[in-house]
């Protein structure tokens, strides 16, 4: 499966928790490539793509932070709205249900991080419609 690894970190509603996590990564020279936070008033989930996911997971877990690793899809498109729209359109028409999506810029390209319950279908759609699946930068 052409997926990349994402870290999902549980954030309780506590001042300074995010800084604590970012500091821990900085101290080990782990670069953050993309981050997205989903939250309610009471808790949040921080999603991270870093330069070294395994190491990041290990050091956060050692600090007692609840962290899990999961598989997501990274699709590289040209950095313009038309390409972004076209990619999402292809996935939707291909029957891929997107749970959430966030983007970041990498080497002049736009990278779409997509979480879906059906990775196999997403992969098939990408291959058939010529969308580039990125398998990591590490």
């Amino acid at each position: 499966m052409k997926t990349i690894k994402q870290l999902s970190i549980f954030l309780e509603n506590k001042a300074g928790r995010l800084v604590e996590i970012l500091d821990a990564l900085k101290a080990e020279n782990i670069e953050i490539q993309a981050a997205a936070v989903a939250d309610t008033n009471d808790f949040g989930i921080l999603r991270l793509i870093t330069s070294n996911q395994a190491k990041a997971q290990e050091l956060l877990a050692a600090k007692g932070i609840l962290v899990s690793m999961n598989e997501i899809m990274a699709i590289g498109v040209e950095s313009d709205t038309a390409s972004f729209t076209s990619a999402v359109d292809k996935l939707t028409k291909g029957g891929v249900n997107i749970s959430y999506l966030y983007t970041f810029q990498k080497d002049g390209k736009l990278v779409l991080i997509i979480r879906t319950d059906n990775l196999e279908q997403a992969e098939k759609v990408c291959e058939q419609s010529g969308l580039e699946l990125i398998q990591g930068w590490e």
Partner: protein
Amino acid sequence: MDSKFWNREIETMPRPQLEKLQVERLKKTVEIAMGSKFYAPKFKELGITPDSIKSVEDIRKFPFTTKNDLRATYPFGIASVSLDKVVRLHSSSGTTGNPTVILHTKKDLDEWADAMARSMYCIGLRNTDIIQNTSGYGMFTGGLGIQYASERLGALTVPAGAGNSKRHVKFITDFGTTALHCIPSYATRLAAAFEEEGINPRDTTVKTLIIGAEPHSEAQRKRIEEIWGAKAYNNFGMSEMCGPGVAIECQEQNGMHIWEDNYIVEILDPETLEPVPEGEMGELVLTTLNREAMPLFRYRTRDLTRILPGDCPCGRTHKRLARFQGRSDDMMIIKGVNTYPIQIEKILMQFPELASDYLITIETIGDNDEMTVQAELKEATDDFAMLQNLTKEITRRLKDEILLTPKVQLVGKGVIPQSDGKAKRVVDLRQNH
């Protein structure tokens, strides 16, 4: 010694005979307590003498003894014998006032060790066991109390003491420890220490846990048994009565047999101090029958429990106490509703997504008392909706149990403060409390 009982005669004594023994011992205890500056004048005033006692019911003529009495007479004011006969004392930490001191003669220590050895035998421990004690050795009775009893049983006893989980892991692994004595919250913490070393606690030699000194629910026991792949038995003791060895579950795991040759048991309404109808919940009040240095009469334990009706299939005739439902003095009154931390714990334990730590905070917001329950999440997830639904479901089930709606907060590890002693479960920030 036969295969099932440490002391068959005492443990299976028919009730009428057991009560006769209690009367004899109560008379003897009154005689001893005539030597107490605290009790002698009270007995005189109430006309209590050894000869005035005819039946167990006569206990109701006696005055109550409270923790405040112990504090007010600190350190030796209740002693019934002169200090030359006293060989040891144990003491509480005294975080909320004078500490309390409990004195022991040589015979007291002997009887105590025997009672706790009987308790260990009752849950199937034998002299072939290797028993490791995780209680602190010092003023806390869980250290030496277990040590002497385990030695009396004839078991190889490892006095490892409190804290330092890594060392416990090493000892259990190296010595092949078969039984542990610990507080319930430490049972889960120690299991986590094993997992950190890459060892599944189920693969260890530990087959029995003696848990006590901290109220816990049936669900928490089940979880401990599941994690360890071992049997966990609820053990009750309190330093005022001696220490561990007052009551323990038998292998039926249905109520703790309280050793009635050593204590008279009353269950009273904490408000009226009248006996509750048989089988109903009330405050446990105990009178010592087999102690010399410092007998206590009608000691108000503040623990809420009830007597389980009927006979126990194990054959022991001593009454069984139900799992404690909290303490009459840790009852929280929130918006006029009486609530106990154990009710909240019972609900939280039903959620496999949660670890065992939690904290209840009560504060005044506006004119209202508001309760926040922080519950520790076991693992991270990428599923946001699951966490939202979990929060909702915990809130709903808590509301069904305690009849008010708490604010539920999921937290990660280490947010709830931990200590090596008893876990702190309630923080009351309300004024006038």
